[in-house]
């Protein structure tokens, strides 16, 4: 083994050997990954957001595989070749063993370039993909075209959506211990325990909470936004084909956090409109009792503070209920 690939001074070209092993393994690893794993990386491609994020994940993975293999090949090689018992020559020592300018500078340059590329790539993705499905807070910086207009219209009950209209559909997600409910401002602001959204549509999820912090995670759509009391956290996604998805709470919200989940559906545009108009009509009596549609609601009496604070000291409302008037 030590007789192969030696240079004129009899020194084995360790680095050259390692590089060859590394390159071969990395190519094989990356090819295997992209054929067998990449297309199946969760959470799939139900929405444009999910598809984009899957692509980003796969790019990072294609870069991570050579990094992991680089270190593993080096460690394995070292242990095999430079083990105490096998290695007849003395350990490398002296000034040359302590520093090596070429190695150090190239290490720093390579890692820095990789990191800067990753940061630029990630920033580009998050900006062009409208926040990549993450919660952007009350003032989304990277909203899709028409989203802000639809949001403004929704608040005053003037947003419209119909099959083929290409309008952005605002949907409100209300988290409370321990369930999610959904309000549809485009359809009279009715509230439903079911989340149904139309296919081929940009959805603006407006996530808020009535008590503690929850996190709305529509898994297959790849949307995740924290539900904070008193805050409207907006996240965007673009649905593609009809399909089912799971909604889970991904921020610890108390003892029943583990069972705070339900399922949602992407339906064809016609089916969605049918469901929405039917439900709007069926729920009309209930909707009249609900507070007017708003981005946030004052928590109810069993909400965030569990009755700890004296309600009469509350600067905003005298009766702390979901049905109370909004702070002006």
């Amino acid at each position: 083994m030590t007789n192969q690939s030696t240079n004129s001074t009899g020194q084995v070209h360790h680095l050259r050997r390692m590089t060859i092993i590394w390159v071969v393994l990395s190519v094989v690893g990356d090819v295997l990954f992209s054929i067998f794993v990449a297309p199946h990386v969760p959470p799939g491609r139900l929405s444009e957001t999910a598809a984009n994020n899957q692509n980003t994940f796969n790019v990072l993975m294609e870069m991570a595989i050579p990094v992991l293999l680089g270190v593993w090949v080096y460690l394995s090689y070292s242990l095999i070749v430079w083990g105490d018992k096998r290695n007849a020559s003395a350990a490398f020592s002296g000034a040359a063993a302590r520093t090596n300018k070429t190695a150090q500078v190239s290490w720093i340059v390579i890692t820095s370039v990789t990191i800067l590329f990753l940061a630029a790539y990630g920033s580009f993705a998050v900006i062009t993909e409208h926040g990549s499905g993450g919660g952007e807070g009350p003032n989304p910086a990277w909203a899709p075209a028409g989203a802000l207009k639809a949001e403004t219209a929704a608040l005053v009950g003037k947003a419209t959506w119909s099959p083929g209209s290409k309008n952005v559909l605002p949907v409100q997600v209300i988290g409370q211990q321990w369930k999610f409910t959904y309000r549809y401002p485009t359809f009279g602001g009715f509230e439903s325990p079911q989340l149904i959204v139309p296919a081929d549509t940009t959805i603006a999820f407006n996530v808020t909470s009535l008590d503690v912090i929850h996190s709305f995670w529509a898994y297959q759509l790849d949307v995740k936004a924290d539900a904070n009391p008193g805050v409207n956290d907006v996240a965007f996604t673009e649905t593609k084909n009809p399909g089912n998805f799971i909604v889970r709470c991904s921020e610890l919200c108390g003892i029943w956090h583990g069972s705070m989940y339900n399922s949602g559906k992407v339906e064809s545009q016609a089916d969605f409109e049918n469901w929405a108009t039917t439900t709007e009509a069926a729920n009309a009596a209930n909707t009249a009792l609900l507070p007017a549609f708003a981005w946030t609601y004052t928590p109810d009496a069993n909400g965030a503070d569990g009755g700890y604070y004296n309600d009469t000291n509350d600067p905003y409302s005298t009766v702390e209920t979901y049905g109370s008037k909004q702070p002006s």
Partner: protein
Amino acid sequence: MTISEERSTEVTGAASGHPHKARGLSWTQRPGIFSQNIITAAVVAILGYVLGHWFGNYLSSGYDYIQNSGQNNIANTLALAFGVVGWLLGIGALNYPFAKLFGVDGLEEESPVDNWTKYFRYSLDHKVVGLQYVVGVLLFLFTGGLLAMAVRAELLNPTTHLFSPDTYIKIVSEHGTIMMMMMTSVIVGPLGNYFVPLMIGARRMAFPRIEALSFWIFTAGFMVIFSALPYGGFPTGWTGYAPLQTQAGPGMVSYLLGFAVIGVGMILAGFNQAVTIINYRAPGMTWSRVPIFVWSILATAALLTLATPVLFAGGLFGLLDKTVQTAFYVTEHGGSSYLWENLFWFFGHPEVYIMALPGFGIAAEILPVFTRRPLFAYKVAAAGMIGVALLSFFVWQHHLFQSGINPDMRPLFMLTTELISIPTGFIFLVGMGTLYRAKIRLEIPMLFVLALFFNFLIGGVTGVFLSDVPVNVTVHGGFFVLSHFHYTIMGGLLFAFMAGLYFWLPKMTGKMMNKKIGKIHFWMMFVFFNLTFFPMFIIGLLGQPRRVFSYATNLQGLNDFSSVSAFLLGLSFLVFFYNLIWSMWIKPEIAPANPWESMGLEWQTASPIPPYNFERIPVIMTDPYRYSEDGAPAFADLGNGGPSDSSTHSMA
């Protein structure tokens, strides 16, 4: 004579014996149980607890947390706070300040009897405190580990539950908090206190009383956080997010106060380490000759001192909310839940590096010994540690990517978070460079160090995934994150701690750890650690959120695999404890003075280590880690027979 030399030689007068021995017995210095020890501490702590509880009820009777619930947070808070003060009073931590305050003599803390009982007392000897910390940390770790076993047992089945949701969330929260608190001190406490003075050629820590105080505060903090369980636990996880925090029962007080108490101990420990390292280095130990482990402790000390006060303030706000109805964290009363998130993570992220840097230090310290060659790129290693420490203050918002704050700040925090992997990557440059053309001795400490590189690589690479906002959307708040930080903290720091224990216990106790059992321990821990946590990356990607008791039924296979591996991982710790008991008490094997043939200063002094470490202050002659170099001078001149310039270093 340099400043550090002058300071180090101050105590030479007492080097041969006990500093207080000469003054005779005072009223506190009776032998046995009559002097102050852990028992008196417990008694006074209980008295303090009762007094605090009474006082709190006296101040605010009828002021229940929830009407007619009989839960009074003021009484609970004061009870625990008085209990902590009682603990410190009982152990003797306040004797010296009181003695100085009232001009009384003979209130010294230390026992005149120099036997095993000193380990149960307030001791000013850094070697005693170091060993106290070892035991304290292992107890802490064991408690947290048992809770982890309970968590994994619950997750064996997605629908059949072992615990009620209430109990389960308490267990999860207690596990996380105990582990996070313990990990802040796991290396700085035991190995930092014990070996930093030895490695820099000092006779003691800069502030021995503060050093002892930090240990006894650490133990008090442990008891405070554990008191959450009898109080009914807390449901918030270790992150303690408000408003869930505001809503939680009295166990939350234990969490907030526990973090505040531990925080004080962390600040004191960090401050003491920093002062010691800066001022107490032996003559000749310039900054480029400081052992790399000491560099890592210095960087950690800076983080402990600067980051922990933020946690302390955050905990204090929370306590005020819970006791006197302020509303720092209550949105509908003018506060903000984001305030806690930001305060917590502004501390929390540097804390993550408090848990990484000492591990890097141990890895880089141990590598040259078992590769028999110099540490590669020493300066890069030191710079990397300082760089990590600095950058760690600018990354905290990556924990809040999906929380709805400042969307346009996300590219910035993505950049800073990814930048930190550059200095973190230096440890791989150093490690891999040091393996190059080495003569690797696969002793147990070396195995743990190699495992650290394996584990931390996975932890670090997945960290880059998490810092990428688009990928973060998928993996935030799920098992992917959970696996990531177990890979960095457990796979990194805990493996380093084990490496450190196997490496240094022979010097600390004079007995070797059994190699055969050690190998079984290592392989079990390494294999089952990976088998436990690697599937969790996949579980997380498949959509399982953290801290849940029920999950999708199709994930049961992976969860069961992880759980069974976790039980075997737990078993590996029993193997470790068995090895510890076997090697220390049942069949002790006397350790040679320098079993690993290390050039480190801590191995050069006599064995067992004399009371003040060195007969005279050593003089550092050259750079560290000059292994296998013909004609290299010895690292230090200890003045015991070798060539010396004894004129300036006389013994008293």
